[in-house]
C-alpha cells in the first residue's frame, strides 16, 4: 500500500481485468491488469509491474512499473521505474527515467524554464550570483526529496539503488 499514490480513494484494477474503450477518473488509479482504453484522470496513475496499458494516457502524475504503449501526458510528473517499459511520447514538466527502464519515444518537458524557476525559487533569486554546482544541489530540496522517495520505492521492489541518491 505504501507505494500507492496518496490521498482520497484509490481504484486498483486487478490482474485479470481487461478494459477496452475509454476511462475517466477523479481518483488515484493503480493498474495491475490490462487497459486498452484511453485514460483521463485528474489524479495519479500507477501502473504496476503486471500492468499493461495500450492507449494514450492523460493524468496528473504517472509512475510506470509495467508496460505502456501510447503517449503519456502528465500535468505534474512522469516516472518510469526500473522495471517499466514505455513506447510512446512523454509530455510533462518533470520526467524521470530510472536506470533499467526501457523507453522509446519522444520527450517534451514543455517550457522547462518556467517550472524549474517555480520549483527552485531561491535559484531565481540568486540568478545574478554565480552558483557553483554544489550550491545548485543543496538548493533543491524539492528535487532531492523526490529522488529519495523514488529510491525508497525501488528498494521496496527489491532493488536497492542507494547509489542513485543524489548528494
Amino acid at each position, binding site marked *: *500500500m505504501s*507505494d500507492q499514490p496518496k490521498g482520497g*480513494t*484509490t*481504484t*486498483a*484494477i*486487478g*490482474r*485479470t*481485468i*481487461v*478494459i*477496452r*474503450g*475509454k*476511462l*475517466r*477518473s*477523479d*481518483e488515484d*488509479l493503480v493498474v495491475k*491488469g490490462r487497459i486498452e*482504453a484511453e485514460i483521463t484522470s485528474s489524479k495519479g496513475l500507477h501502473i504496476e509491474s503486471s500492468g499493461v496499458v495500450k492507449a494514450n494516457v492523460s493524468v496528473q502524475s504517472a509512475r510506470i512499473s509495467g508496460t505502456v504503449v501510447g503517449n503519456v501526458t502528465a500535468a505534474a510528473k512522469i516516472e518510469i521505474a526500473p522495471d517499466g517499459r514505455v513506447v510512446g511520447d512523454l509530455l510533462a514538466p518533470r520526467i524521470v527515467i530510472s536506470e533499467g527502464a526501457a523507453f522509446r519515444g519522444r520527450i517534451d518537458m514543455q517550457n522547462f524554464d518556467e517550472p524549474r524557476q517555480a520549483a527552485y525559487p531561491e535559484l531565481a533569486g540568486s540568478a545574478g550570483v554565480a552558483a557553483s554546482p554544489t550550491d545548485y544541489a543543496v538548493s533543491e530540496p524539492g528535487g532531492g526529496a523526490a529522488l529519495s522517495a523514488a529510491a525508497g520505492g525501488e528498494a*521496496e521492489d527489491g532493488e536497492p539503488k542507494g547509489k542513485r541518491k543524489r548528494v
Partner: protein
Amino acid sequence: MAQSDDDKTILGPTLEIEGEIEGDEDLIVQGRISGKISCKKNLTVAGSGRVEASVSTRNLSVSGQVVGNVEATERVEVQREGKVIGDIKAPRVIIADGAKFKGNIEMGVD
C-alpha cells in the same frame, strides 16, 4: 502491494468507463460503466454504481442501477435499494422488497 486486493477490483465512485470490461475476479462497481461487462466471478453494483451495459457474470448483486440485459450463470439479486431495467437470465433470481425492476426474467424453467 496489498494481497487482499489481488482477487478483487473496486472501480471507485469517480471512475467512468465507456467500453468493455473483462475480468476473472470479483468486481465491485461504484462508478459509471457503459458498454459491456463480462465477469467470471461475482459482480456487485454498489449503491453509487450506474451500469448501462450488457452484463454477463456468475453472480450479480445490484444495490445501484443497471440498465441493460443481464445473464448470470448462478444468481442475480436485486437488493432493496437496487434498480434494474432490462432482461435477466439466470437459474436463480432474487428481487428484494423495495427493489425496482422492469423487464423479463428467464430462469430456464421448462
